């Protein structure tokens, strides 16, 4: 089998696809002329350049070996899940619930953290968030809401 650097191959194809997506999308807008460019002109050519660069990156991947690194499911799942929870819970239940949930969910990404540590740390972080952002800075954030 031929040697392929999978990292750069995937990287190149990803950039290529993004470029094509934007270039095709830009066709929806007016192109205009070189003197009076329409809204589609610059995104179209940027998309074309991106597609070309993507092709170059993918081409350089051929002929040398390389393995894809492992995707850290647990770490990324917990961190991204925490942000999702914050965004969903904040308008429904307010800052205290959202911050506590975000902190607790993100801590599940750390295999060494036990239940007690998670609960105590999250409570402390919620308190800190309230002290800094609500009590001290007075930011306009809903603190405690009940949707039902």
């Amino acid at each position, binding site marked *: 089998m031929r040697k392929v650097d999978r990292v750069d191959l995937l990287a190149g194809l990803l950039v290529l696809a993004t470029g094509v997506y*934007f270039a095709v999308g830009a066709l929806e807008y007016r192109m205009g002329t070189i003197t009076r460019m329409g809204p589609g002109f610059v995104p179209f050519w940027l998309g074309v350049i991106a597609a070309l660069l993507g092709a170059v990156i993918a081409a350089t991947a051929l002929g040398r070996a390389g393995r894809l690194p492992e995707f*850290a499911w647990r770490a990324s799942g917990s961190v991204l899940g925490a942000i999702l929870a914050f965004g969903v819970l904040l308008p429904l239940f307010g800052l205290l619930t959202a911050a506590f949930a975000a*902190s607790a969910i993100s801590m599940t990404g750390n295999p060494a953290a036990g239940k007690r540590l998670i609960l105590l740390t999250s409570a402390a972080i919620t308190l800190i968030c309230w002290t800094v952002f609500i009590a001290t800075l007075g930011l306009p954030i809903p603190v405690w809401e009940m949707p039902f």
Partner: protein
Amino acid sequence: MDVWANIVIGFDTALSPTNLIYCLLGVSLGTFFGMLPGIGSLAAVSMLLPITFYLEPTTALVMLAGVYYGAEYGGSTSSILLNLPGTPSNAVTCLDGYPMSQQGRAGVALFSTTIASFIGGTLGVIALYLLAPLIVRWALAFGPAEYFAIMLFGLVAAATVTQDAPAKGLAMVVLGMLLGTVGADITSGVPRFHFGFFELRDGINFIALAMGLFGVSEIILSIAQSVDKPFIQKVTLRSMVPTRDEVRRSVMPVFRGAGIGGFFGALPGTGPSIATFIGYAIEKRLSSTPERFGKGAIEGIVSPESANNAAVQAAFIPTMTLGIPGSATMAVMMGALLIHGIQPGPQLMNQNPDIFWGLAASFWIGNLLLLILNIPLIGLWVRMLKIPYGVLYPAVICFICIGVYTVRTSTFDVFLVLFFGLMGYVLRLLRFELAPILIGFILGPMVEENFKRAMLIYRGDFGEIMGRPISGTLLAMTAALLVWTFWSVMRARRREIRREARWADD
């Protein structure tokens, strides 16, 4: 003399009690976040930006700038004690800083990097005072053609200078520019690429982009690697005193580093990181005993740190005089200026001399405060390094979410952080550099606007842009940079293939 008048105006503003307090707060928070591995100056500035919304513009910027250069001071502390760079531009300091710490000379290393940072920072501020008025006088005559050429040079430099894979760096710049096209077109007002989201018609919130790309992806990587912190030794004041020989060997590297930093900092597109690498390489080449480098040579830490802080201060020159941010962190700083209703550019210095010179003066005061914070109080910071990462990152995630939410009081932006966090993590796994995305994102719309205006003025004739002296020179430099980068990559690749072929023959 003009310079003295500017210094007086500046210190008058910077020494007001409010500005002093926020400067102290900024540099302290900066040192703290800079010291934490995984939170660079960029994430620290964007995370703390919402806190400054309710402050006066000058005070807000004094504080944010303090966070920025404070983070660079703090970052060297974790490089030396933990072998983990606190910010990307402190990476070089690990090479000789950590060996010094293993030899029990952590105190000397911390002391000398702080002094080197202070000298570098001070010289950077002096460069800002002397060069900024000259550039402004010059820049008032700039038209869209010149702006277009400078920005193009900055974009190409950002993508190619520090990269081993320039095509990937350029791809990230273009990706950033594409993200920058999201939202209303400046000339026609047509909303582009809003994917059906009402919130995207104003464009992507750049704080959400920065926090997702840098903050979130860095946290994911750090947890996944679960780095064990090495033993941190105690640092006493007495252990910080360097020997006479160490002082003698450090003097020239500090000044050379400051010169290198000042040059690369002021150049758009290159920034502190590249300055530190070059500073280190030059000291190693000039040294009569290069074999000591990597084993705890004091020259190998003072030159990069001096370069780093000189570059950080000098980076404010293009941002404040031309409105062109030279690095990703400066892009965030410029975003902060815009949020506070200050338009950076040649007019800033004449229309708001108090803001311009006040900021410049506060930089030096901040450096002085950092000197005090980092030498007598070093023990306090070392103790803070012992906070385990496992309880720190949940707090950082909450701060990111709250900060991004407050910018526009919108949970949509929180979900954007989620999206860009995932994107940043995937791109990092694919060995892309992320900083060029942010530079492309901030400069992209400005490049587009100036390009359109230039083409309108010159009736679509690109030759006119190339024929003007300043823009023509810059375009030629950009082309030369591209050719040189690709030539050196091709050469390295050919050599690699030949070597592999030779192995295959054996």
